[in-house]
């Protein structure tokens, strides 16, 4: 899949994107009000995400992974610290960023067709003809160009998640934020969607920040893996994967480096709470 990817015309190829840091978080704290007063969810988070990079954030449940992604998406302001997107303070959802949620069944509009779900973010911003092109292009990237007229509930879970990814891609985002995107899918569907995501990454050069509780998925997809641990969550030093691309479900996962990373990350996670 990835071999053919480089030969296809890429919408927004990597070399056209500005380099440097996409996100820069500096001493970010998040507290959310609860009945028992404010509770700190994230503690002193500082990190950068470089353009075109794939960053995975892993951690046990309750460590604030989703909260961190909502911060990056502009859905939640930090209680303290600064969040810069391309050097500018983030004040709300940005046009450079698209988000994919885990619960695809809730995130798609059941009364709209697949194509019209994908078009949702383009309506009122692009002329009809351009919109149609963008939707076709996005659906083609996730292999659903034949299903544009179907309604989401007629598709399998994996296909529905691809519709959501297509809706994000249609915006031609610089950054793709994904909250446990393949968490609800079976192992085989998950593997094929992982490869599709890497294919999309190779074609678009988008920066990807994804949250997962699957360590192996994190190593397989990412350039860097952050472990978030504790309550409130704190970010541990990242692990750079440095595995060769294109990656392959069989050979990549058999590399000694892969097994080494898996070993050290499992150990790192086991010592956290």
């Amino acid at each position, binding site marked *: 899949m990835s071999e053919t990817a480089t030969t296809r015309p890429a919408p927004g190829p990597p070399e056209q994107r500005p380099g440097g840091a996409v996100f820069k978080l500096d001493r970010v704290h998040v507290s959310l009000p609860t009945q028992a007063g404010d509770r700190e969810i994230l503690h002193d988070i500082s990190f950068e995400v470089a353009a075109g990079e794939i960053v995975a954030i892993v951690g046990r449940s309750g460590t604030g992974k989703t909260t961190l992604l909502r911060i990056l*998406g*502009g*859905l939640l302001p930090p209680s303290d610290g600064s969040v810069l997107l391309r050097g500018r303070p983030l004040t*709300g*959802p940005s*046009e450079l*960023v*698209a*988000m994919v*949620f885990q*619960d695809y069944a*809730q*995130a798609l*509009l*059941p*009364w709209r067709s697949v194509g019209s779900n994908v078009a*949702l*973010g383009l*309506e*009122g911003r692009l002329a009809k003809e351009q919109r149609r092109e963008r939707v076709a292009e996005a659906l083609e990237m996730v292999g659903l160009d034949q299903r544009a007229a179907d309604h989401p509930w007629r598709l399998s879970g994996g296909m529905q998640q691809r519709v959501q990814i297509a*809706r994000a891609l249609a*915006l031609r985002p610089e950054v793709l934020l994904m909250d446990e995107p393949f968490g609800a899918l079976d192992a085989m569907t998950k593997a094929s969607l992982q490869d599709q995501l890497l294919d999309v990454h190779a074609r678009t050069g988008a920066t990807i920040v994804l949250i997962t509780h699957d360590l192996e998925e994190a190593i397989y997809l990412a350039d860097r893996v952050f472990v978030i641990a504790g309550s409130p969550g704190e970010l541990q030093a990242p692990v750079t994967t440095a595995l060769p691309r294109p990656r392959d479900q069989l050979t990549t996962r058999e590399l000694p480096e892969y097994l080494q990373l898996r070993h050290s990350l499992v150990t790192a996670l086991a010592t956290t709470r």
Partner: protein
Amino acid sequence: MTRRINLPGIAVVVILIALWQLVVDTKVIDFNYVSPPSQIADRIVDLARDGELSDNLWHTVSVALQAWVIAVGLGVIVGLLLAYSAAARTFTMASVDALRTVPVVALVPVALLVWGPSAKSEIVVAAYAALWPIVINTMGGLRSVNPRLHDVARTLRLSRVATARKIALPAAAPEILVGARLALGTSLVVTIVAEMVGNPAGLGYALIEQQQALNPAAMWAYVIVIGIVGVALNYAIVGIGRLLVPGSARRLGDAGA
């Protein structure tokens, strides 16, 4: 959606009518003013033939529908306001709860005094009564829209108007439709009550007129016609709802059966 004709259900209705005919014919029930179905049917045909029925029918149905349309339009707007403005809720929910629990029949004489015995009076009271189920269901439906859809709207940077129009209202459509159905029933009932106690027109007045003229068969004829109008309007709105909101059939349940 195709619906199979409910034969056992229809059989029960036919048997009940036959039984009614039988107990009246055999004088098991012998009240002067309980007419047998055969006589009532004859009277419906008579009333239809001289045009009296269709005039009354048209008056009542058009008043009830006008009131309903006003209630739906106003109710959805008020529901939107209450769903999205905390200030609007804080200041008005107490009034809304008080107003919607006032038995609307008590307001019929008031309306008659203000607007006189006219179709306008009927429309005002019926629309008032039909407003509340729409307001409550619109507000409830909008407030129970899955928060994930609001996240989606925000990350796609939809405007407030686009969010309401493209996401919130369609998501709440099944609930709004339930409200609209309840409102149509309410509108018809209140219209008929207003005709009985105030405006001398329509099916409600005709029913009272026949009762006071001691014409039981004609009175029963109007009772049956009013029943049929209620059932027909309910069927119509459930059918329209199925067309407009394909997913609503399940949530409306057996409303039309």
